[in-house]
C-alpha cells in the first residue's frame, strides 16, 4: 500500500518540513557569506567543502552555514530483505537527486544521514554483529567488547529528565539557503512511500556576522523576545558570545573518521571506513543568567580557563595546540580556584596526547583537536516540531538553546570528552555539586535530549548493511 505524503511523514510534519517559521527571518537579517561555489563529492558524508576561513582577533575562524536542520525519524518499513532493499533504493535515489542538484558546500546543501542503534539492532542485527566496528580503546579500557556506536548516557551534570532517544535515523541538513534545506527535507521525507515516520524537526542558525553586523544570535533572540537578548554582544557567532569555530579548535579534515586515529577495528571489509560518529543533543541556555550573573571575566574563565586574560568584548580566543590545557593544568585550576573552564577541561580528552599519522599519511600533531562540531543555536522549545509534544515537553514559546551536533570517531570518544566537561578526567573525578558555578557552562545549560548515531560513508549511507546477507 502506498501511503499519502501526509501519512508518510507523520501527519502535521509534512507541512512543517517545508515551513521556515521564525527562521525565515534569518534571510532578512543577513546576507549569505561569500563562498566558493564548487565542492567535490567526498567519501565522507560529514565533511563540507567550500567552508570559508576568516580571521578574527588574529585567529582563523571557519564560517559555518547559516541554516541548519536535523530531522529524526523512526522507520516504518518492514525488516524483510526485500523491503529493506526497496527502501534502500528509494532513499539512495533521493539522496543522489540531491547530490546532483546541490554541491556539498554551504552555498549548496550538506546532507548527512546518520543511523541509530535501534536501526542496527532491529533491522540488521546479524550484519551489525559482524560489521559494526569495535572501539579498541574503549574495549581495552572496559575489559569488554565495545562498539563504536553505543547508546547515549546521561552525564553527571544532566538532569534525570534528560531524555535518551531511540530514533532509527537522523538527517543533518546544512546550507546558507533555507530554501535548499526545505528542498532537501522535502526530497528525503515527503517523496517516499511508507518509509519513515518523522519524530522531530529541529532548526536553527549560527553566525551571520562574518562580514559585520550584529549577527544572527542577537537579532534572532531579540526578535523572539528572549530575556537577556539585548546583552548578547554584537557580532557574536552563538548566543553565549564566544566563537566556537576556530579552525584550530575543530578537528581537521578526516581526523574524526572511524579509521583515522586507530581507535576502531573496522572489521573484515572496512565497510564503515570514511564514516564517523554523531552525537545529537538539545540544550536550553539561560542567557539572562549568563550575561547578568556572570561578568565578562567569569564568562571568559568558565568558557576557556580560569584566569585567562583577554580584552573586554573579545569573542574569539586562540585555541591552538599551544593554548591547550592538559589534565595537570585543569587539576591545578580546580585546586586553586575550585573552577574549571569548558574548553580547558575537555581538552585533555578532545586533543591528541601525541602525534598521530593517519592511514592516508596525514600527520596530526600532539594537541590537535579531534571532534568536529556542527552545532547551532535555536529558538526551538525544544524542537521545531515533534511527533510527541507531551513526551518532549514541547512548547510554542521560543526559547534560547543549542542543537549540539558533534562528530567524534566513536561514542566512547564523545563520552570521554563530555565527561571531562563535568570534571571526570582520566586521573580521577573533580567533585562539583550539581549546578555549581565552578563548572561554568553547566550551570546555565540544561540538556533535554541525547542520542548517538553512526554516520556511514557516502557509499553506504542508505540503510547500511541491509544489502548484505544476514
Amino acid at each position, binding site marked *: 500500500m502506498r501511503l499519502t505524503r501526509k501519512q508518510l511523514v507523520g501527519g502535521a510534519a509534512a507541512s512543517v518540513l517545508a515551513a521556515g517559521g521564525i527562521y525565515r*527571518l534569518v534571510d532578512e537579517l543577513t546576507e549569505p557569506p561569500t563562498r566558493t561555489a564548487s565542492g567535490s563529492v567526498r567519501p565522507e558524508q560529514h565533511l563540507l567543502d567550500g567552508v570559508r576561513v576568516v580571521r578574527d582577533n588574529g585567529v582563523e575562524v571557519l564560517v559555518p552555514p547559516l541554516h541548519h536542520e536535523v530531522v529524526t525519524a523512526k522507520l516504518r518499513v518492514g525488516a524483510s530483505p526485500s523491503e529493506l532493499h526497496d527502501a534502500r533504493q528509494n532513499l539512495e535515489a533521493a539522496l543522489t537527486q540531491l547530490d546532483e542538484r546541490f554541491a556539498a558546500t554551504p552555498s549548496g546543501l550538506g546532507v548527512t544521514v546518520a543511523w541509530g542503534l535501534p536501526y542496527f539492532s532491529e533491522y540488521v542485527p546479524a550484519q551489525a554483529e559482524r560489521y559494526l566496528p569495535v572501539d579498541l580503546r574503549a574495549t581495552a579500557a572496559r575489559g569488554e567488547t565495545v562498539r563504536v556506536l553505543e547508546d547515549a548516557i546521561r552525564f553527571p551534570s544532566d538532569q534525570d529528565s534528560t531524555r535518551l532517544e531511540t530514533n532509527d535515523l537522523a538527517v543533518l541538513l546544512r546550507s546558507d539557503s533555507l530554501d535548499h534545506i526545505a528542498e532537501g527535507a522535502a526530497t528525503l521525507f515527503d517523496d517516499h512511500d511508507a518509509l519513515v515516520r518523522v519524530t522531530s524537526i529541529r532548526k536553527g542558525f549560527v553566525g551571520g556576522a562574518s562580514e559585520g553586523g550584529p549577527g544572527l544570535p542577537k537579532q534572532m533572540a*531579540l*526578535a523572539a523576545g528572549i530575556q537577556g*537578548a539585548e546583552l548578547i554582544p554584537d557580532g557574536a557567532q552563538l548566543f553565549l558570545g564566544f566563537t566556537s569555530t576556530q579552525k584550530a579548535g575543530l578537528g581537521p579534515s578526516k581526523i574524526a573518521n572511524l579509521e583515522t586515529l586507530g581507535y576502531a577495528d573496522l572489521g573484515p571489509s572496512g565497510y564503515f571506513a570514511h564514516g564517523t560518529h554523531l552525537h545529537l543533543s538539545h540544550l536550553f541556555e*539561560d542567557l539572562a543568567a549568563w550575561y547578568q550573573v556572570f561578568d565578562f571575566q567569569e564568562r571568559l574563565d568558565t568558557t576557556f580557563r580560569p584566569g585567562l586574560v583577554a580584552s573586554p568584548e573579545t569573542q574569539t580566543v586562540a585555541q591552538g595546540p599551544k593554548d591547550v590545557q592538559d589534565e595537570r593544568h585543569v587539576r591545578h585550576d580546580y585546586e586553586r580556584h575550585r573552577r574549571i573552564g569548558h574548553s580547558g577541561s575537555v581538552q585533555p580528552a578532545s586533543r591528541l596526547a601525541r602525534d598521530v599519522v593517519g592511514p592516508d599519511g596525514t600527520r596530526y600533531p600532539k594537541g590537535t583537536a579531534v571532534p568536529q562540531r556542527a552545532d547551532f543555536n535555536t529558538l526551538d522549545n525544544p524542537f521545531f516540531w515533534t511527533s510527541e509534544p507531551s513526551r518532549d515537553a514541547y512548547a510554542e514559546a521560543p526559547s534560547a538553546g543549542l542543537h549540539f551536533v558533534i562528530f567524534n570517531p566513536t561514542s566512547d570518544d564523545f563520552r570521554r570528552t563530555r565527561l571531562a566537561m563535568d570534571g571526570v578526567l582520566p586521573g580521577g573525578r573533580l567533585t562539583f555539586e550539581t549546578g555549581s558555578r565552578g563548572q561554568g557552562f553547566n550551570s546555565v545549560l540544561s540538556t533535554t535530549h541525547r542520542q548517538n548515531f553512526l554516520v556511514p560513508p557516502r557509499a553506504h549511507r542508505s540503510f547500511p548493511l541491509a544489502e548484505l546477507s544476514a
Partner: protein
Amino acid sequence: MKRRIASVAIVVAIGAIAVVVGAAFGSWAWGADEESSSVATVEEVESPPVCARSQRGSWQKLANEIRAPVYCPSWLPSPLVGQFGGRFFNGRSVDPDRSYLVSFVWFERSLGIVNEVHVNLRGYPGTTRIPACEDTLTVAGKTVRTRIPCFSDKRGTKRIGGATVTVYTANQGADQWHVLYAWRRNGTLYTLSEHVAEPYGVEEVISHLDRMMRRLVLVPPSA
C-alpha cells in the same frame, strides 16, 4: 529564568518590528545623549523634579547622617512608591564608611511566575572607585573567596539628568540581575539600579533608569 510567552506565529509576525526596536535599543548605552534629544515628556517640560514632602525628611536625615548629598527619586517604576517605611520600602543601610543603600521592591508570585520590581539607590561618599565585592564559591567542601568588582560589564556611557552615567549589566550583591547606572559627583560615586525581571525586560528597565535619572533630586546635608 523567566521567559516571555509568545507564540512562534506571533513572533514571526512581529519579528521585523522587534528587530527594528532592538537595533534602536542597541544604542542605549553607547553615547546616547539626553541633551542632544529634543524629545521630552509633558511632565518633564512642565514640572521640574521635586522630592515629595512626605519623603524629603527621610532623605534629608540620610544625607545628614552620611554628611554628603543623596538623591531622592521623584519617580519610580510602577508600582513602587519611594516612601521610607512604606509598603514597598525594602530597607536603608549605612556602612561605617558612610556608604548607603536604599531599596524599594515589589514582589509577587502568581501561577509559578515571579514578578518583581526592585530599585536600589547607593552612594559612596568620598570615593569614586567601583567597590569590590567578595565572590564566594564553595565546591566539594572548600570555599574560595575572590575580590571582584561589584559593578561589571560596562556597556558605555551617556549623559543624562546632568550626569555622565556608566551602564553596567553584570553586578553583585543586592544589584545582581540589575542594570546599574553609576556616576560621579564631587568625589562621590552614586548608583541607581533596577532588577531585570518580569514584568519588565531590559529595554523597559533602561527606559525606567533613564526616567529615574532625569527625575532625581539632590538633597544636600543640612548640618
